[in-house]
């Protein structure tokens, strides 16, 4: 049962990392223009120098 001592915190930390990533994505306005972003990825104009 000692394995739980490692596994439970690990699962919580991994989940927390996911939550943190989502938090960052929302805060940095990654979801402001979902439609535009899905099209921009097809454009080959900014391969070397991504637009801000």
């Amino acid at each position, binding site marked *: *049962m000692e394995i*739980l001592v490692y596994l*439970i915190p690990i*699962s*919580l930390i991994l*989940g*927390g990392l*996911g*939550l943190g990533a*989502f*938090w960052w994505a*929302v*805060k940095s*306005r990654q*979801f*402001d*223009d*979902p*439609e*535009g972003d899905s*099209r*921009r990825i*097809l*454009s080959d*104009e900014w391969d070397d120098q991504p*637009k*801000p």
Partner: protein
Amino acid sequence: MDGSVERGGLAACPACVALPGMGDVAAGGVAEKELLLSLPEIHCAACISGVERVLAAQPGVASARVNLTLKRATVDAEDAVEPGALVAALGAAGFKAQELDAGLLSSTEADKAGRDLLMRLAVAGFAMMNVMLLSVAVWSGAEGATRDLFHWISAAIAFPAVGFAGRPFFASAAVALKARRLNMDVPITLAILLALGTSLYETIHSGAHAYFDAALSLTFFLLAGRYLDYRTRAVARSAAEELAALEVPRAVRLVDGAEETVGVGELVPGDVVLVRPGGRMPVDGVIVEGASELDRALLTGETRPVAAEVGQVVSAGEVNLTGPLTVRVTAAGKDSSLHRMADLVAVAESAKNKYTSLADRAAGLYAPGVHILSALAGIGWFVATMDARVALNIAAAVLIITCPCALGLAVPAVVTAASGKLFRKGLLIKDGTALERLAEVSHVVFDKTGTLTMGTPDPVNLSDVPEAAKRAALSLAMGSSHPLAVALTGALRAEGVLPLPVEGLREVPGYGTEAMADGRALRLGRAEWVGAEAGEDTATWLSLEGAAPVAFTFADRLRPGAAEAVAALTAAGCEVELLSGDAPRAVARFAKALGIDTFRAGVLPAEKAARVEALQAGGAKVLMVGDGLNDTAALAAAHASVSPATALDAARVASDIVLLGESVAPVADAVTMSRRAVKRIRENFQIATAYNVIAVPLAVAGMATPLVAALAMSASSITVSLNALRLR
């Protein structure tokens, strides 16, 4: 000091020389501003990069970013950059653009509320999944110290998570309780808090059942409903704001002969304003200088322009067509006829707001019901077993299991699905209950000018006009921005007619354009001006010195989809009617072309509203479709209302649904879609009820273990969401 001398004389680094404008920035002479442009027609990756490239190439533009979801571009530019120049540059590159009034768009604030809800939803989801993992272990047989450990970890996750994610419910319940009434959030809050409280108590006393996962999944599913609801309304609100922001309300005031641009709100009676051709009257007033023609279609529904001379009274909302007019203000802002009409609309709106939505009606029955049931179950068990712990557990279980996950999701899920589908067809639902009201519609009343027709004239007799006259007309029409001239230019260009070379082309405001060709005078304009007899139809006349005048007659063009809309509405069982302020002949012709049997012409605004009210007094539910000031009272009085995006602001405010595209065919789609949506909402209520009928006896009997509660709750929420997705 030293530094600036050095930079001025000898560049510190080669890069500074290579960067143009660097000196300006250092001098601090450039203030930056943010411009917003609406780009209604962009739809692809090529459009995005095209628009951004065009904008970035304009002088003074620092950066440009397109948002395809909102169909908008944000431009950072120097203060001197005029939005008009950007719009023109985009137009030249083939992108239709319009300036937006940034002051009217509160998008950042709205975004914040949405992001806030999304974060709470994410936290609730994260906590729910982790606690579920631990709970599954307990359900599958963890015992003793292991179970207690799992419960403690669950509690450690659940308490902060609920505290953060459940805030919207707690706040709303607190407000409702303070006002001494019950809303849907009161049983929700009570259930969440009771679930957490009893679970903690059980955990401390190492009991077998803890409802942490139930409290969290409750929060999660309800937040999902809230978020859907928010998204639907945010899309509608931002689009509605954008429509309002398209009209930048400014006026040119003349002070001692000098022009200054001021906001319409600053004008007072006695001011003198200049209205240029193509501009809309910002105020009520009297013309003191100039001659022109006025387009009153939005106010009265009559399609023919009216001559405007000195001394004539003008109303806000009329469009000045040919010459510049100087107008002395008699009523501005809140006193203008436009605003008085908008106030009338506000009064009618408040009457409409009395409509209670299906969800509110369900909540009104539901909230007291579950509280009484849970209290009764608790008291019953206490009397039967004399064990307060068991009784409280049962009461909590009843509240958790009846809690309105399905009810909270039922309406938002369906409304989101339906408005999303309608939005893609070009319909914008402004009001939450609009779909429900639309579903009850039995009569449809259409306005003609601007609603079933485009409100713009098209020449109809070009085939009867000799080629020479066409060439002369084209060169004259090109010199004017009068709508008839613009329509004529477009139609003749499309035919491939070449303009006749002319000299001395000039526009006579209010009359037409004249020029010389081969030593003979040419005139294009009003009948009496060119020496012809004015007829019944809208027409412009061409006269060549020494020849008989030639008439170009115009008719308003049907809006695409008008015939389809009428046919589909009739097929859906609605009575269709046409009420217009225009002349009888034109109205009768249109009604016949569209297959509408009931029509009335020359109807005054008050009569339109009276007709709608009379129909509704007779038990009908009326859908009013109109665009002008003469329709606003009727729009507000009707059970549901639709106006096209080209309508006057007051009309758009008064209506529940805005038609974004050119076609009116989606109106019929809206009616059928709303009927299906309401059917789905009712089905969802039935599903929720059916689930409660099964689950509540289990809870009252004390058989609702956390496993049963979690299964029942998720099952009902998922069924309801899937049922909403069935909406086609």
